[in-house]
């Protein structure tokens, strides 16, 4: 199964591959239900609704309600107006949009040669190269920020843009590359035979056929850079702020919650627009008969050979620089030892790792329980209700992490005051991870052929037994991958955590940020050492997921 998943601003993104096989199967399943008559439908419907209730309450209370509170707060602020609101909105909003646009364009340009090389050609190390290009993408944003600080590149717009390109290249390479590799070679050959040279073939045939993948990948990169938080907060200094960063500053540093809410409102509008663009293109897939079942990669010959070496070597070397410098500089001083020593201000830095692991474990359990229940609901029926449910569950994915954390602070004083509780941290992480668990599990559930159930039913097996023997083993693997994803999402999450973490329950990313905010080489060294540790743990878990072969990291 080529399910497609990747990591964003401390979050991961998942999507189904560009064919609607699974939906077709789901339709098939419903027809199968109908032929079985209405007797079986009624009890199933109640079970379905009950299963839907738990995730619905979870999403309702921890996501819909807080966002609604932000909306009301923000709307009243916008209608009353406050001093400097308009000027600030225009300044920050404009910066957010143009840096996101510039980052997206630069990422497309930077990723193009590598995408061409790995999708058109078969060469030794191609798989490794694709895996390596994904490494920056799965790194927590705080680690990426620290890496650019380690380069000595701070308070510069170019550093922000470079960090965004570094971070998002994998999205283009893997999303566009997956489609490009499968384009029917005969269609490209037909253009050549009809008299089009290589460049003309690319322009008149390849590019139009790749358009859906390019559009989808572009809107995701835009979304990620539009909501960029950790990177901009760390390397942007005081001069540069995206909406996301400004929401954080207004809420956390100046306690101006209404102004922060107004900014969050604007942010939500931007995000919704980007997601709308994405979903529109998701529906318009390249005709399946323009694709060949297996890849059409060829051995590079002559000039193409030099091009491949240059594209792959150049891209990977450039991407390696920030990581290499981060690791090298972290080794230079006594930074790693200092992580274990009690610091007057931040405590023992390495203790944040223990917190992170605890939170990640709790977040993982919540995300898997809610996620698998939701997946069962979505896969169980294919009506309009089910589609709405699916869409609602995906919303936290599109909403920025900062908005989620901010919403908790604004809303969760009722009915019990949860705002001071440490449980908000794993709940926020779980909220962000649920869409991934769902996206990984739903296609697996839908892929179970309905005849398998029917065959078992005909043999007289009870429904519970059928579920246990057929569905469970299949779901278990998806759930395992889902939990691993939830775990790394939680480990690297920074946006929401920065709002809800208490001094006693600080996580690794928050600790890194604190160390970076302090002046002095010693603090910087400790931040770099902790960032390397976090990166290593994340990379280990992601590599383990990749080996399970259920999800493919990085494409959409």
């Amino acid at each position, binding site marked *: 199964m080529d399910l497609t998943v990747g990591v964003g601003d401390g979050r991961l993104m998942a999507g189904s591959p560009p064919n609607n096989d699974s939906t077709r199967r789901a339709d098939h399943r419903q027809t199968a239900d109908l032929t079985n008559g209405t007797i079986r439908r009624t009890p199933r419907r109640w079970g379905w609704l009950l299963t839907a209730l738990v995730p619905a309450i979870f999403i309702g209370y921890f996501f819909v309600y807080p966002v609604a509170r932000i909306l009301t707060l923000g709307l009243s602020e916008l209608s009353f107006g406050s001093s400097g609101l308009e000027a600030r909105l225009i300044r920050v909003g404009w910066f957010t949009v143009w840096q996101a646009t510039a980052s997206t364009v630069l990422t497309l340009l930077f990723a193009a040669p590598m995408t061409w090389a790995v999708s058109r050609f078969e060469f030794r190390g191609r798989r490794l190269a694709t895996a390596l290009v994904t490494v920056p993408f799965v790194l927590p944003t705080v680690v990426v920020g620290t890496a650019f600080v380690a380069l000595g590149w701070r308070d510069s717009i170019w550093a922000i843009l470079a960090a965004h390109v570094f971070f998002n290249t994998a999205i283009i390479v893997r999303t566009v590359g997956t489609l490009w590799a499968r384009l*029917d070679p*005969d*269609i490209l*050959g*037909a*253009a*050549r*035979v*009809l*008299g*089009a*040279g290589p460049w*003309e*073939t690319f322009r*008149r*045939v390849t590019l*139009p*056929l790749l*358009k859906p993948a390019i559009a989808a990948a572009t809107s995701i990169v835009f979304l990620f850079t539009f909501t960029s938080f950790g990177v901009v907060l760390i390397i942007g200094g005081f001069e540069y702020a995206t909406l996301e960063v400004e929401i954080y500053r207004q809420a956390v540093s100046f306690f101006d919650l209404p102004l922060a809410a107004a900014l969050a409102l604007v942010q939500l509008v931007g995000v919704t627009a980007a997601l709308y663009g994405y979903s529109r293109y998701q529906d318009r897939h*390249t*005709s399946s*008969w*323009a694709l060949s079942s297996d890849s059409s990669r060829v051995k590079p*010959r002559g000039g193409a050979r030099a091009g491949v070496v240059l594209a792959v070597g150049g891209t990977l070397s450039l991407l390696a620089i920030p990581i290499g410098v981060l690791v090298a500089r972290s080794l230079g001083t006594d930074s790693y030892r200092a992580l274990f020593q009690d610091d007057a201000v931040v405590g023992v830095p390495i203790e944040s790792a223990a917190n992170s692991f605890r939170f990640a474990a709790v977040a993982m359990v919540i995300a898997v329980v809610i996620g698998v229940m939701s997946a069962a609901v979505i896969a169980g029926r294919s009506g309009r209700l089910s589609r709405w449910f699916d869409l609602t569950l995906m919303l936290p994915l599109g909403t920025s992490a900062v908005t989620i954390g901010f919403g908790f602070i604004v809303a969760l004083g009722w009915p019990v005051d949860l705002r001071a509780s440490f449980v908000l941290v794993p709940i926020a992480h779980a909220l962000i991870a649920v869409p991934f668990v769902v996206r990984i599990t739903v296609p697996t559930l839908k892929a179970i052929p309905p005849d398998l159930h029917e065959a078992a039913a005909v043999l007289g097996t009870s429904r519970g037994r059928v579920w246990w023997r057929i569905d469970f083993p299949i779901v278990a693997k998806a759930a395992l991958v889902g939990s691993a994803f939830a775990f790394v999402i939680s480990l690297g999450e920074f946006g929401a955590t920065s709002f809800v973490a208490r001094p006693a329950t600080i996580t690794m990313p928050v600790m890194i940020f604190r160390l970076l905010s302090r002046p002095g080489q010693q603090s910087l060294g400790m931040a770099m050492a902790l960032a390397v540790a976090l990166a290593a743990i994340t990379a280990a878990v992601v590599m383990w997921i990749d080996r399970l072969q259920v999800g493919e990291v990085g494409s959409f």
Partner: protein
Amino acid sequence: MLELRNVAVELGGKPILNGVSLSLGRGEIVAILGPSGSGKSTLLRAIAGLVPLEGGEILWDGVDIATVDVHQRGFGLMFQGYALFPHLDVAGNVGFGLAKEDREASVPASLSRVGLGGFEERRIEELSGGEKQRVALARTLAPDPKLVMLDEPLGALDRSLRDRLVSETRQLLEEREVTAIVVTHDRDEAAAMSDRLAIMREGSIVQIGILEEILAAPADDWVRDFVT
């Protein structure tokens, strides 16, 4: 005209064509007949320049065309699955190989020649199998190629449609006095569409001639079993 001398091709390290020699006169139609996997499609691709030669040479009017790029050979190739461009409509497909200024006049003419007048704005997905075949044929013939190669032109169609299209296609080729190679695995189709047959087996041409000759004096037992 076209002359192949000991053409050899390898794909993924495996030999696909081992020394194919064949020559075609102007306006001649040769059918290449062989079981699947015998290298027929690869031979067409090699002539078109889509796969590199491992050995031998391909000559056009006595000149080796090894260094001529695919898009400059001026040959036409109709692919087995038609390979129509899904992002273009029928007119976009047929006019693809034409200069911009020629499209407006030539496309409707090409389409009516294959019996698809008025199909210009149809989307490829809406076409039936037979219509796709005609669009692909019109697209291949539109730029007036020096050599036309058809790879299983009727392969995916049902029997009755095939019988009708066999004669239509042959007529189209003859009208234009075009030199053509037709690849097929069907003996009757091969005989009906061509002047001469070349029997291909495991990457080599084992016998060339008209069907009656081959039937009367097959080169070996395999050829006899294959054609009868």
